[in-house]
C-alpha cells in the first residue's frame, strides 16, 4: 500500500493512502476531539467537532478530520483560533440539548464554552447517530433509526423490532453521550404496551 507524506501541526507525518486525517493524526499521537466517531463504525462527519484546517490546491478550508482523505503534501492544522471558536460554538449549541453530558462538559472546559449560551431545547439528542449506526452496521437489526430532517430530526425505535431485540441487547446504550437514547427507549417501551396507534403529523 502506497504511503503519503503530509504535515500536521508542523510535523511531518507518513500515512497510507486511503487513511483519513484523523487516523493519520492518531497514529502519531496528535489528538483531535471527536464525538460522533467510533472505531468500529463508518465515519459519520455529523458533529464537526473534529474540524481541522487544511491547505490544498491553493485554498484553505475547514474539513472534518474523520472523513477527509490524506493527500500528498497536505498541510493540516488541528488547533487554531478559528477552530477553537468553531468548537466552542458547536459545544454551546449541543449543550442547549444536553448540558449534563459528561463528554460535552469536558469539551466545554477545554474550549471555554458556556452551557447556557442558548435557550434549553426539548430533546437531549445531539444526533451523533452512534445508536442508529451501531444497530445497523454491527447488530444489523435496524431497530432504531432517524426520522424527519433538519431541526425536527429525531431518533425513533421501530416498536416491533425493539420489542423483539432490544430488551436482551442494549449494546448501544453505553455509546450515547447524552441520555437521549435511554429516554427514547423508555418511550417506545411505553408505546408498545398500549394498543398500536398510527403516527400523526402535528
Amino acid at each position, binding site marked *: 500500500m502506497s504511503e503519503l507524506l503530509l504535515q500536521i501541526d508542523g510535523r511531518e507525518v507518513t500515512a497510507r493512502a486511503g487513511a483519513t486525517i484523523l487516523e493519520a493524526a492518531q497514529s502519531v499521537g496528535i489528538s483531535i476531539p471527536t464525538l460522533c466517531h467510533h472505531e468500529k463504525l463508518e465515519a459519520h462527519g455529523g458533529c464537526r467537532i473534529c474540524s481541522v484546517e487544511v491547505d490544498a490546491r491553493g485554498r484553505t478550508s475547514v474539513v472534518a478530520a474523520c472523513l477527509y482523505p490524506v493527500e500528498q503534501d497536505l498541510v493540516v492544522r488541528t488547533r487554531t483560533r478559528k477552530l477553537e471558536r468553531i468548537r466552542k460554538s458547536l459545544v454551546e449549541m449541543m449543550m442547549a440539548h444536553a448540558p449534563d453530558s459528561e463528554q460535552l462538559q469536558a469539551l466545554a472546559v477545554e474550549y471555554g464554552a458556556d452551557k447556557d449560551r442558548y435557550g434549553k431545547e426539548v430533546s437531549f439528542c445531539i444526533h451523533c447517530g452512534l445508536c*442508529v449506526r451501531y444497530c*445497523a452496521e454491527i447488530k444489523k437489526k*435496524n*431497530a*432504531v*433509526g*432517524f*426520522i*424527519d*430532517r433538519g431541526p425536527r430530526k429525531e431518533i*425513533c425505535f*421501530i416498536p*416491533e*423490532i425493539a420489542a423483539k431485540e432490544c430488551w436482551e441487547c442494549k449494546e448501544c446504550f453505553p455509546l450515547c453521550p447524552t441520555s437521549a437514547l435511554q429516554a427514547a427507549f423508555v418511550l417506545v417501551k411505553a408505546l408498545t404496551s398500549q394498543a398500536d396507534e*398510527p*403516527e*400523526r*403529523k*402535528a
Partner: protein
Amino acid sequence: MTKDTIDQIIDKHHCEASSLIQILLDIQSENHWLPKEALERVSEKLDVPMSQIRHITTFYKSFSLVPRGRHEVHVCMGTACHVRGAQRILDSVTEQIGIGAGETDVDLKYSLETVNCIGCCALGPVMVVDGEYHGNITPAQVAETFKNYE
C-alpha cells in the same frame, strides 16, 4: 390499496432497492397517502429495513403517512411569492377551508400544504388546487375558488 396493486408497482420498477423512492412516489400518487401495510410490503419485497423506509417517508415532503383530503391545496411560499404576499394568501386559505398548513380536515375534504417553490415565480402569489394553478391570486379570489369544491 390492495397488496396486488402494491406488488404491481414494485414489479414495474423491477423490484430494485434503488427505485425505492420512485416506488413510494407511485404508491403515494395512486393512493394519496402511504398506509403502514404498504410500507411493510415494500420493506419485505425490496429487503430494505423499515427504519430506512420510515426515514425516507418522513425526510421527503412529498409523502404523507396519514390519509389526505379529496382535494389537495398547495400554496407556494417561494421567495417571489413571499414578497408578493404569499402569507396573506395562506391565511386566506386557512380562513376559507378551516385548516392550517400540513393539516387535513376531519371530513377528509381538503389537505393544505405549503410548497417551497412551485416554479411559477413570475405569477406570484400562486395557489394550486388538484393540480390546477391559480396565479396572481388575491384573497378575494381565494374565497371565490373554494365555493366550487365538493
